[in-house]
């Protein structure tokens, strides 16, 4: 099905099932521990061997000698895989460093060997007996030091690296009110609960890989390329994923090494990365340095806005491009943005929840708060003054829907924004200073081809199959709701099967494109099934109504199951998107409001209340959507207050590489959270008229926290995370 013009009225608009906050259909499996996560196919793989990954002990250099004699002699050891034993390997198109290093070492904890043994404990113990000598080479590990030598990438996601509209330099120089600020965001780890884990089993030259991966087809293609075998020889299975946040978009070492280990051991092999290995072995969100300049008239209208962004990556490949956030968000005739990437010898950087936009929002939305203060404007009002209904870089291109103003206004009312003291550090309750902060949320809502297969059996059960993944987001449930709505059957009569490369290729989960794209693919397949059913039963598919397990038209009705003669009826189709998202800018918007208390003596920060108001098209399931947004708000609190990959600039690695050192929020950090969704649909987005919310939810949160801290204390921190050591000097005297 091609989606090339605005969606008209369709069966989804009935919203008999779609749009309802139903419980997750996979919830009972997860709460009873019976959902099979990547490491848990105990009934399918009864006698696996276990692989333990050895990570490189240096950041850059070479292995001089790799002595595995004691490893091989250790109890239970079956085999050891190294780059040498594995033979020539290819590299997946989406990988930067090779997944199995040696003799050249590209980053700390790069995998250099897999020890395969009868038990996990034996493999782990034997791995410690490896004697590896390295020749360390000097590397570049400090973004700040490498900033001036950073280069312009060919492009960034969704646009060019640099843009220039009008005459920024002159307009900024002549603006009556100006801000020139530099902001930094640190590297961050996905720190998902389930580690990267895989089980590989070969039958002849065919490989089955049970794994934890957000993008089944990417994983399959890149594994085939790395192993130099046909993609058709690989089956990837990943029905449940214990969190990914972008860290499982790609083929990683667990999957490759399980495959190589199983080939060498001649039996199935399980590999899970240990937690201390994950931080340096896998990908992370790159640190950024962002310079933002804003010039405005005394009326509060922005006349000039400039955003320069520096980040680093192994081999200088990929930018964490904060400029994406300022380009479309506020009006202003004169604009510039630049993106530069430094080559660093740290582990490779890549996507993490709302890549580019989350750090972009962290910087820009503090700058906006600072600018509002200079203009003596309320920060909500300043944002509304500079709202725009067209893409400021391409005024001929309108947003399909843009309700930022409504989000801000509704949020301000709901949150009691009028109680915010315009003068910072003036509201106190006992030992605590109280402050309120706001930030705008923005994130594009991309769409991408997504296919599905729908089966109807003689009992009237509808089964959906697509390689779409559920990374904790609720994909199972919204896909079931879509199929139930389309086929007119109750939710209980829909079975959803996901995360298997033998199913049609879907959008997968990433970039907040998954919910809208994958349900649209299911919509397309259901339209085809409706047509097939109508034809067989003698109805007109256009006119017929599918309801209560029946097809109805005029006075006629027939049970769907009547059409099934040979066991089941199958339809398969894909949604393919035309150029609507070129002609219009498809984006989601929101506003975050935060109240904090800061201890006047110790500068400890406690969040008291949070509110998000989101505008994101049709909300397919308000319960799972809310869960995504509150999770994203929590992650935004982590980014604001505590999350930082600490770089040892001498040895080139992330020092705090476990969950004791890399802190993420715990329950005690997260207070009451409220989420409101504006009632809307976006007919330009898809037949579902929906969009994503999972990444919108994190954009702006951290800045809203930082702005609330400023409002409470009068201390402006431009370097995340806003830890108490950065506040202490500015706190009231404590005797």
């Amino acid at each position, binding site marked *: 099905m091609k989606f090339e013009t605005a969606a008209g009225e369709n069966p989804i608009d009935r919203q008999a099932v779609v749009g309802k906050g139903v419980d997750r259909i996979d919830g009972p499996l997860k709460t009873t521990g019976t959902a099979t996560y990547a490491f848990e196919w105990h009934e399918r793989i009864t006698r696996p061997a276990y692989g333990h990954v050895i990570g490189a*002990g*240096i950041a850059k250099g070479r292995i001089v000698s790799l002595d595995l004699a004691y490893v091989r002699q250790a*109890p239970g050891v079956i085999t050891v895989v190294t780059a040498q034993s594995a033979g020539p390997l290819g590299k997946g198109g989406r990988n930067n460093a090779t997944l199995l290093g040696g003799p050249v070492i590209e980053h700390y904890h790069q995998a250099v060997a897999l020890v395969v043994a009868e038990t996990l*404990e034996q493999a*782990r*113990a034997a791995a*410690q007996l490896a004697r590896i000598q390295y020749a360390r080479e000097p590397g570049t590990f400090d973004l700040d030091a490498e900033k001036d030598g950073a280069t312009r990438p060919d492009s960034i996601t969704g646009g060019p690296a640099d843009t220039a509209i009008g005459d920024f330099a002159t307009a900024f120089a002549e603006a009556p009110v100006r801000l020139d600020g530099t902001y930094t965001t640190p590297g961050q780890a996905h720190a998902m609960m389930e580690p990267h884990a895989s089980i590989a089993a070969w039958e002849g030259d065919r490989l089955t890989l049970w794994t934890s991966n957000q993008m089944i087809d990417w994983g399959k293609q890149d594994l085939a390329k790395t192993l130099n075998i046909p993609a058709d020889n690989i089956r990837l299975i990943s029905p449940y994923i214990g969190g990914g946040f972008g860290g499982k978009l790609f083929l990683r070492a667990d999957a490759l090494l399980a495959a190589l280990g199983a080939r060498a051991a001649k039996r199935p092999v399980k590999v899970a990365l240990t937690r*201390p290995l994950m931080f340096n072995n896998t990908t992370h969100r790159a640190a950024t340095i962002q310079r933002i300049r804003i010039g405005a008239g005394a009326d509060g209208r922005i006349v000039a806005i400039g955003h320069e962004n520096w980040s680093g990556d192994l081999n200088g490949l990929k930018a964490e491009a904060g400029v994406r956030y300022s380009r479309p968000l506020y009006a202003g005739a004169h604009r510039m943005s630049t993106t530069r990437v430094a080559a660093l010898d740290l582990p490779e950087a890549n996507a993490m929840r709302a890549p580019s936009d989350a750090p972009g929002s962290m910087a820009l939305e503090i700058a906006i708060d600072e600018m509002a203060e200079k203009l003596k404007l309320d920060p909500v009002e300043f944002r509304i003054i500079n709202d725009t209904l067209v893409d400021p870089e391409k005024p001929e291109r309108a947003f399909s829907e843009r309700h930022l103003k409504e989000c801000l206004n509704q949020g301000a009312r709901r949150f009691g924004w009028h109680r915010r003291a315009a003068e910072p550090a003036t509201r106190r309750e006992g*030992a605590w200073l109280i402050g309120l902060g706001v930030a705008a949320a923005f994130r594009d809502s991309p769409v991408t081809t997504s296919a599905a297969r729908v089966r109807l059996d003689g009992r009237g059960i509808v089964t959906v199959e697509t390689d779409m993944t559920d990374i904790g987001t609720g994909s199972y449930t919204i896909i079931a709701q879509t199929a139930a709505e389309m086929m007119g059957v109750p939710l209980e009569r829909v079975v959803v099967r996901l995360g298997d490369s033998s199913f049609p290729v879907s959008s997968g989960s990433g970039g907040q494109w998954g919910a809208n794209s994958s349900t649209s693919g299911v919509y397309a397949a259901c339209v085809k099934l409706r047509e097939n059913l109508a034809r067989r039963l003698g109805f007109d598919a256009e006119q017929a109504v599918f309801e209560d397990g029946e097809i109805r038209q005029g006075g006629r009705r027939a049970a769907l199951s009547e059409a099934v003669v040979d066991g089941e009826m199958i339809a398969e189709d894909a949604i393919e998107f035309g150029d609507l998202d070129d002609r219009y800018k498809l984006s989601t918007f929101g506003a975050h409001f935060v109240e904090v208390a800061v*201890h006047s*003596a*110790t*500068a*400890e920060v*406690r969040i008291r209340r949070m509110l998000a108001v989101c505008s994101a098209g049709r909300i397919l399931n308000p319960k799972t959507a809310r869960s995504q947004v509150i999770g994203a708000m929590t992650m935004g609190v982590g980014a604001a*207050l*505590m999350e930082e990959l*600490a*770089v*040892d600039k*001498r*040895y080139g690695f992330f*020092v*705090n*590489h*476990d969950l*004791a*050192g890399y*802190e993420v*929020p*715990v*329950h*005690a*950090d997260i207070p009451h959270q409220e989420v409101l969704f504006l009632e809307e649909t976006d007919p330009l987005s898809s037949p579902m008229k929906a969009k994503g919310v999972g990444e919108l939810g994190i954009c702006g949160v951290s800045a809203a926290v930082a702005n609330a801290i400023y409002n409470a204390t009068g201390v402006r921190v431009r370097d995340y*995370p806003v*830890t*108490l*050591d950065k506040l*202490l*000097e500015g*706190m009231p005297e*404590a*005797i």
Partner: protein
Amino acid sequence: MKSFTYERAASPAEAAAAAARVPGARFIAGGTNLLDLMRLEIETPMHLIDVNGLDLDKIEPTRDGGLRIGALVRNTDLAADPRVRRDYAVLSRALLAGASGQLRNKATTAGNLLQRTRCPYFYDTNQPCNKRLPGSGCGALEGFSRQHAVVGVSKACIATHPSDMAIAMRLLDATVETARPDGSTRRVPIADFHRLPGDTPHVEHALAPGELITAVTLPKPLGGTHLYHKVRDRASYAFALVSVAAVIQPDGNGRIAVGGVAHKPWRVEAAEAELPRGARAVAGPLLADASPTHHNAFKLTLVQRTLAAVLAEARA
């Protein structure tokens, strides 16, 4: 984890004797720290002596009006004991500021005192660490040291002791009771129990090989207001940047001990005389000869300000 042999001890004396007999033996009780370190091969005992079956899990009054806490009393039970909550509230508060509910259910009184540092260079076997591998150097000294010690440090080690409970024990002048391999027992004042790193940061406490902690005794109650203020980057389940344990009397005198700043619970009795004159007056002698790094110099300010918060709360 290296393979090890295992036995259950029948009495403290027998446990101590067994530990002295078998080279590389370690006691295990809650295992909340030791097992993690064994998995990473930071600790590689050849033999484990399980002391969980010993009759050391009682909290009993002493003749001089104090409390004797068995070595195996779990942190949860100690924090919840009505006598502790009434007479030694600072201990209860310190315990509850540490770890998580699950860990406190397993962790024991003796084991808590013997926790190893959480220095990330200690935990990463690719990195130098004089505590893990004497003579290999200190990775933290010129590395990432935001969590590290600011007083009592040496060129060899700037690690902190991670325990909250130990800070309160030091404040209360607890005494550590032990059983020795030769069958004798001894009592070690808590002030002498933990050591500064000096040139031998791998030697962390006063126990001799094979010596087993059997109890920790508290002297009779101090009265006063008991406070424990733990400052960290998140609200729970994190080690202290700085913590202050305090017992403040109505006249403004009292005791303080500080966590998160040194290789052992940090208490300077001379500084306590300044308590009636406020936090700044105390901080001077308390942190004399401090030697912070660029990353953790803020702790000096933070100690003083946390102390101010504690004194304000005591007055309130």
